[in-house]
């Protein structure tokens, strides 16, 4: 809660406005009561004519308008403040995501991050739009009312001073008990409310097994149990409102008695003061109760803010870049010197030394989990190096320019991401220039997607990606290939498909890589024997370490684990 409060009070202008408007609202509330009472007092006690009290009515009208206006401005300011703070949080989150090098890897939890950005931020809304304005009003207005009450009748003020503190005390006690009860029932509640989702998700299974009829009772029962447990929790929450309401009623009762005593028995209080107090006192207690309900809203925001805080507190180690430009005429010479990469204190890669000459073909092999993809990401410049150096043409990669590096690079992964947009846009993303239609068509032709594009009514304008039409895995890979043909990179990182059921894509990939490799260094996470055999150098990874390095001929005879990886030439029984 402290973090959120800090964020709110950074908005000095808004907070100032809230304070000013609260004072105005308090003043107009008092004014409104004064003029209500003056009118009644005038015609009822003093026997004045309507014309004589008319000015009071006008003044009352003005008070009412000021009161409505000031509470409108308070509400607006709350909304404004929520919008500003939420915007700050979203921008901060995006910045922090962008600096997170792991975002490109499997640990990225992208779905959770989207919900953090969208839902968690919105959940903090109530804190700023409701709780903070209420908090400020609760500090100011009751105090103003109390001062006025004291000025009219100090004993009433004293009674309020004694009874009012019971409200926050009881609120805290009952609130704590409610929370305990809610925590205690939490698991049960989640279970019951999850049953419906569980059954809906499994409806296909249930139908196929002819079991859907029985589920109706299950839903009924879990709904009933959910209701009873929830009501149990709510009972104590409602009991708290009951107590609060009772305390304030009791106080009002005592005050009325006291005012009455003075009015009737001692006759030392005017009708004006008595009526005035009786109008102001309920307002005073309403204010305190409103604060109680705003407090509940704020509690909902706290859990979300906790999540946001955790995310923002994470340490980011972005990849460092420099200013030096690379020659674009030929592929760079890449050298790894004792490169290590660790994440969460766990070594993913250690002590990797590589020498990748221009135009060479490198195959990275190893079992799943051996660190192949991590190595590719480090090669690509997506992950930072923890120890050791990467030298590009003899210069440390940290010193060369990011643009210069990525301008030379293409990465064809097994599941390339297609952006929402047309096929044309998805190919054109390969280059920073505005490519012509001819260039795009040429790239598409080379990547073997022309046939696909021609078969679609909208051709290159066909929308793909989220919200667009679905493409198969092979088709996506060929689009990524077209991006590479358009880019004409000097370094190509290629993740060869693990399964080989798409003959067409397989063929295209082979041909294309052969063509691209004429003008580029190609580094492949290889799953095909022919790819491995054709490489100049095979890097064999095991548990994040290079355990062997050499050509196929060199490894085949001497290195046992390599032979184990080689395909068995016979198929077993149906697997």
């Amino acid at each position, binding site marked *: 809660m402290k973090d959120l409060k800090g964020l709110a009070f950074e908005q000095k202008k808004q907070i100032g406005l809230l304070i000013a408007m609260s004072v105005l609202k308090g003043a107009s509330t008092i004014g409104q009561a004064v003029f209500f009472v003056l*009118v009644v007092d005038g015609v009822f006690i003093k026997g004045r004519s309507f014309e004589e009290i008319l000015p009071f009515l006008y003044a009352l009208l003005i008070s009412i308008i000021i009161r409505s206006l000031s509470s409108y401005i308070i509400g607006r300011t709350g909304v404004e403040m929520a919008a500003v703070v939420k915007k700050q949080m979203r921008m901060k989150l995006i910045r922090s995501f962008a600096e997170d090098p792991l975002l490109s890897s499997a640990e990225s939890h992208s779905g959770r991050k989207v919900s953090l950005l969208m839902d968690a931020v919105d959940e903090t809304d109530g804190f700023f739009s409701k709780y903070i304005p209420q908090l400020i009003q609760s500090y100011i207005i009751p105090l103003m009312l109390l001062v006025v009450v004291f000025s009219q009748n100090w004993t009433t003020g004293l009674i309020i001073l004694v009874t009012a503190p019971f409200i926050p005390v009881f609120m805290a006690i009952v609130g704590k008990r409610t929370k305990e009860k809610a925590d205690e029932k939490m698991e049960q509640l989640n279970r019951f409310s999850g049953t419906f989702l569980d059954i809906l998700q499994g409806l296909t299974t249930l139908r196929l097994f002819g079991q859907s009829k029985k589920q109706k009772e299950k839903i009924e029962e879990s709904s009933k149990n959910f209701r009873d447990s929830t009501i149990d929790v709510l009972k104590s929450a409602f009991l708290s409102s009951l107590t609060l309401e009772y305390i304030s009623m009791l106080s009002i009762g005592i005050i009325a008695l006291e005012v009455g005593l003075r009015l009737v028995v001692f006759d030392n209080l005017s009708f004006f003061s008595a009526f005035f107090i009786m109008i102001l006192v309920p307002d005073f207690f309403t204010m305190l109760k409103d604060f109680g309900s705003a407090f509940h809203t704020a509690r909902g925001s706290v859990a979300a803010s906790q999540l946001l805080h955790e995310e923002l507190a994470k340490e980011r180690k972005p990849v460092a870049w420099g200013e030096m430009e690379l020659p674009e005429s030929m592929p760079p010479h890449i050298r790894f010197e004792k490169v290590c990469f660790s994440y969460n204190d766990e070594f993913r890669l250690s002590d990797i030394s590589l020498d990748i000459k221009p135009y060479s073909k490198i195959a990275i092999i190893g079992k799943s989990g051996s660190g192949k993809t991590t190595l590719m990401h480090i090669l690509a410049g997506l992950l930072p190096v923890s120890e050791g150096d990467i030298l590009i043409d003899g210069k440390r990669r940290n010193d060369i320019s990011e643009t210069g590096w990525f301008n030379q690079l293409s990465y064809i992964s097994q599941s390339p991401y297609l952006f929402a947009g047309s096929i044309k846009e998805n190919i054109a993303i390969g280059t920073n220039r505005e490519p012509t239609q001819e260039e795009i068509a040429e790239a598409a032709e080379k990547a073997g997607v022309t046939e696909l594009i021609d078969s679609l009514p909208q051709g290159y304008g066909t929308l793909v990606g989220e919200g667009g039409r679905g493409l198969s895995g092979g088709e996506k890979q060929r689009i990524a290939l077209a991006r590479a043909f358009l880019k004409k990179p000097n370094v190509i990182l290629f993740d060869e498909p693990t399964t080989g059921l798409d003959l067409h894509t397989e063929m295209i990939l082979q041909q294309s890589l052969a063509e691209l490799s004429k003008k580029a260094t190609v580094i492949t996470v290889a799953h095909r024997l022919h790819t491995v055999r054709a490489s100049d150098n095979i890097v064999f990874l095991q548990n994040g370490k290079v355990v062997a390095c050499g050509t196929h001929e060199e490894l085949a005879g001497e290195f046992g684990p390599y032979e184990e990886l080689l395909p068995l030439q016979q198929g077993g029984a149906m697997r």
Partner: protein
Amino acid sequence: MKELAQVLKLTILEKRDVSLAIIFGVLAGLASVALLASSGYLISKAALTGQMTVLIVIGASLKLFGLGSAISRYAERLLSHRATFTMLGNLRVAFFEKLAPVAPEIYGKYRSGDLLARIIGDVESLQNFLLRVFYPPVVLLLVFTGTILFTLYFSVYTAILLALGYLLTAVAVPAYFAWRKRRKDWRIRESRGALSAEAAEFLYGFRELKIYQQLSGKEQLLAQLIDSYHEEQRNEGEEEVYSQSINGLFALLVSLAILAVGAYSTAAGDLNGLYLAMLVMISLGVFENISPMAAFPGHFEESRKAAVRLESIVDETPRKKKMAELPPGPLSVSARNLSYVFPGEQRPALKNITIDFPAGSRTAVVGPSGSGKSTLLALLMDVLPAHGGHVLYNGRTSEDFSQESIWRGLNAVLQENHFFYGTLRSNLHIADSSADDGEMIAALNKVELGGFSLDMEVEEKGQNLSGGERQRLAIARAILKGSALWLLDEPVSSVDSATGRIIYERLFEDNRGDTFIIISHDLAGLEKMDQIIVMDHGEVIESGSYGELMERKGYFHGLKEIEQQVMA
């Protein structure tokens, strides 16, 4: 309002709770008005007389009304929430009953997980219907009616002004703002959708964006979208504050008018001044009850939309089919010119497929991802309706048979198999509720899960099981079901190849003479199949036995060549 008719019907089913909640709500409202009224009256009275009795009545009535109001409020809250949760339960059951008959088809059609999340969210958001949409105006109407009738005795003008105030603050203003909200609401959803979509692209496409150096452009775009989303949110928030303030202003203005008219009448001698303070207090008190109406436009619109969406999902009527029963024993299955197009797509998922799966034969279907294998399976098992052509069982069209009887006749293992929260036993009972522990353990043994206890807890969606364990459990379920037609969609793709091989061997051994249609994720062991079907782009491009296909040196042969190259 007619969109909410169904929800209203289900709500009113809870007659006792709803009517009691309304009664207590009205009592609470009236008691709080009475409290203020009596204090106004008694202060005026006390100002005129010096009797102790007045004082005693003050204390007694204030306590009575105060206590009455607080207790009624408590009862009202409890009962209205109870009714709401009961209504939600009824709603779930009613929705389930409509969804169940069309379920597999809808799920298959909209291959999207968020359909379900939306349903759940919509059902949940309808909990506000009783509490914040239906109930406040009704209670308010009764509280105002009671108050107006009371004031009628003292001052007709006050009564008329109160009625006017009710119409303004509880009917006209909320209705107007609900109408405005309905007109503007799409904008906020649109900007939220745009932001959320771009954020997803930013996160999921991060690697590509980084390499193609589009990251900063995307960040700028996100910043713009955040701006416009917040602009819309601000508008929405301001609109709410606006509606609240307008309502509060009108309430106070009506009280002002009552005071003015009352003062005029008093000065003119038409109204006893004794009642003036009371009438003013009544007016201030009764309008305190209208505060829930400020939230009405938002909740009304939300409930309406939720109801519309739920309605649209279950709008589909189950396909009309004849109700013949599938004969027992091994079945032959045939596809005749089958085609299928997913909604919203232009390219067909299946084109003109004709194949025979003779009774007792074993067929493997292979092909790249997205080639239509799973869609073919869904059509063969009558989960999706063919858009062209027919599926035949033993030569008779599937249209003749009820879905229940078709599904009774087959053992299906899909790519996604659902496991329910419960135990292993309860999940296996779904396949055969009469199976005893011995049979279940035998089935587990056949899928090499013999080490698992039947009492083992299974979490939602089987989260505590690995992918391979879930697949094997799904096969165990199919074994327990014991029908003679097996439709398996990549059933062992996450199981290690040795275990997969053993499971297949047992299945074939134990179920000789059954018909098997298996989508396979690889080509190993296909020699044992009677028929292999190769699919690409929704078409069958090759079929035949392993030997025939190898001899033909076509697509399958090419795939086999690649397989020879694939390293572990």
